[in-house]
């Protein structure tokens, strides 16, 4: 409906008293899109890596996520096996094609692994987050074969690994990581910012966990993702 499009845009211009192809207005818009105006970033979460991680943990726990911290990525299978055992959950786990997960010793930890997107029959899934924001204990996950989006929402228990060094102070820090990876102005199909497990307060304002998404969110923070310590 190009008729509708042109008419709506013309109406807006008329209402604003702006001419079509006004260079000054177009430049203002281009400039704003090319370089975001630096905004106010909260002090909460700013500081050294240890300070950022500490705030991240505090904020994530405040919204009912649970946290474990391990030294090396190779320690995660044992931690996940412990978590599932402690919650009386079967030792099975769905993962995507992320090579960092694929090479881990799952069998040694007694875990049965399924691979690929979820169709809704899995109880437990594991994803590798691209980063986190300390200010609200928020994880950032991106779509793709490595960590399919369905794993973030269909299973009852979602376990997410995040590197300590990938925890930024603020959302802007997370966005900067995305820009580094995908290029300015480009996004993967889906970016999920996740802050705690699913919830609803639609019945009498009572807060209940596990509305449609995961009932539990367990975050495993890895100190040294590739065997070396982050600063």
């Amino acid at each position, binding site marked *: *409906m190009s008729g509708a499009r042109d008419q709506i845009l013309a109406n*807006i211009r008329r209402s604003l008293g702006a001419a079509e192809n006004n260079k000054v207005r177009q430049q*203002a818009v281009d400039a704003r899109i090319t370089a975001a105006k630096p905004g106010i970033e909260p002090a909460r979460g700013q500081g050294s890596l240890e300070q950022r991680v500490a705030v991240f943990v505090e904020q994530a726990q405040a919204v009912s996520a649970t946290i474990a911290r391990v030294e090396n990525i190779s320690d995660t299978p044992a931690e996940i096996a412990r978590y599932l055992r402690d919650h009386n959950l079967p030792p099975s786990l769905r993962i995507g094609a992320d090579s960092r997960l694929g090479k881990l010793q799952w069998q040694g930890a007694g875990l049965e692994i399924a691979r690929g997107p979820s169709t809704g029959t899995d109880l437990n899934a594991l994803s590798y987050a691209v980063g986190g924001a300390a200010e609200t204990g928020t994880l950032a996950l991106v779509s793709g074969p490595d960590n399919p989006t369905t794993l973030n929402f269909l299973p009852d228990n979602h376990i997410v690994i995040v590197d300590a060094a990938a925890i930024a102070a603020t959302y802007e820090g997370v966005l900067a990581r*995305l820009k580094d990876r995908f290029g300015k*102005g480009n996004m993967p199909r889906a970016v999920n910012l996740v802050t705690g497990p699913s919830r609803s307060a639609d019945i009498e304002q009572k807060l209940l966990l596990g509305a449609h998404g995961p009932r539990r969110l367990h975050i495993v923070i890895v100190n040294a993702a590739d065997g070396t310590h982050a600063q």
Partner: protein
Amino acid sequence: MTSVSTSPQFKSNVQQALHDTQLQKALANVRHTVIDRRAVAAAALPEFEELRDQARDIRNHVLEHLDLYLARYEQKVVECGGHVHFARDSREACNIITGIAKARGAKTVTKGKSMVSEEIGLNEALERAGIEAIETDLGEYIIQLRGETPSHIIMPAVHLNQEDVEQEFRRQHRHLDSARNLDDAETLLAEARGILRDKFIAADIGVTGANFLVAETGSSIIVTNEGNGDLTQTLPKVHIVVASIEKVTPNLEDAAAIIRVLARSATGQDMSVYTTFSTGPRRTDDVDGPEEYHVVLVDNGRSAMIGTEFQDMLRCIRCGACMNHCPVYHAVGGHAYGWVYPGPMGAVLTPSLIGVDKGGHLPNASTFCGRCEDACPVRIPLPKLMRHWREREFERHLPPLRFRTGLAIWGYFARRPRLYRAATSMTMRALSWLGRKRGHLTKLPLAAGWTDHRDFAAPQGKTFQAQWKKQRRNQGRKRS
């Protein structure tokens, strides 16, 4: 096709609401929870007030350049493999969506919570096209079963109590054991989760709204707590986003800046559970996600609000803080307002979108206490905008004759200060004498609307102006 309004019957809606004991019980939940939660979240972030200014400025900048940001956003969505459709009004928007659905032979559509889809009457349009629309937000699901509309923009079932939900689930979910226990909210939630899980997986199309559209990247953003919006847009083959034209935001950082004030103002959370950025359909190496991605941009009267005194209203980010803080909303609930948007934001937006002849009662339903403006994350001057509507309504002779005559008489005195002072001090003396025994009056001529429901306190002492004058004189004496 815009959803039907009962706003013209506001006064009888109010009478009904005030006498509805179940509703009054449910409304106590708003009065007693959300205001405190927002206050705690705001106090915990030292930068909150500055962030509100920043959010206001971003929204203003967008509205001043809306045509250009829309064009840029459209271009970016297309580059990412998506489709953009513009709709002048509700009918066009519904036709576009039912058109896409019919072309793909869709039988069921799952829906994330979207107020603009309520505004355009999308569910009814889909139904007429023979397509089942299933609301998946828990609150929306409950009210859809009951054949109701949302009574709040973020807590659609806030007018209901737990026993109402239990009753409805027993009535509708006939395939389940009738002797099952549904005594607590957790069980009700689990039942809805189970039923909707199958619907998500079977749906042909998912429709969501958008909290933001990002011009820089062509992304649409939804902010939810349940995860239903994400299941709605991830599982079906087609994802349709329906959003009003003013939702566009320059870049990702601007969106993040506004997100910081959104949940804090809405529910008092620091951040909603799921903030999802969707950009185009499934990529070549993707193993999940929709194969088609459409955005329907709805004007429905908004482009005509730009450049008027109501432009500020388009800054609104739909957090619901204004209704959460409104004493009128607390008393009558959302349905009394008679259309999609209740509370102070609805009192300004409804006359703009459906006409002051239909929505004119709403801007009058305010005490002008100013709590809405105090709570608004983008600082919309809601009382001022309601006053503009009252003026327009008055100019068009829409209020009843008695009301206009009364105002004209008051206006006559107000323009003659000497006469005004003499008349008010005389009235004061008379009222004070009449109420001298009990300290209040139970009946007053021409003011039965007040005295039928509460007593009128008898004036004590002099008029405000006389007292003010005296105080100024005394202060002058003290200083000299």
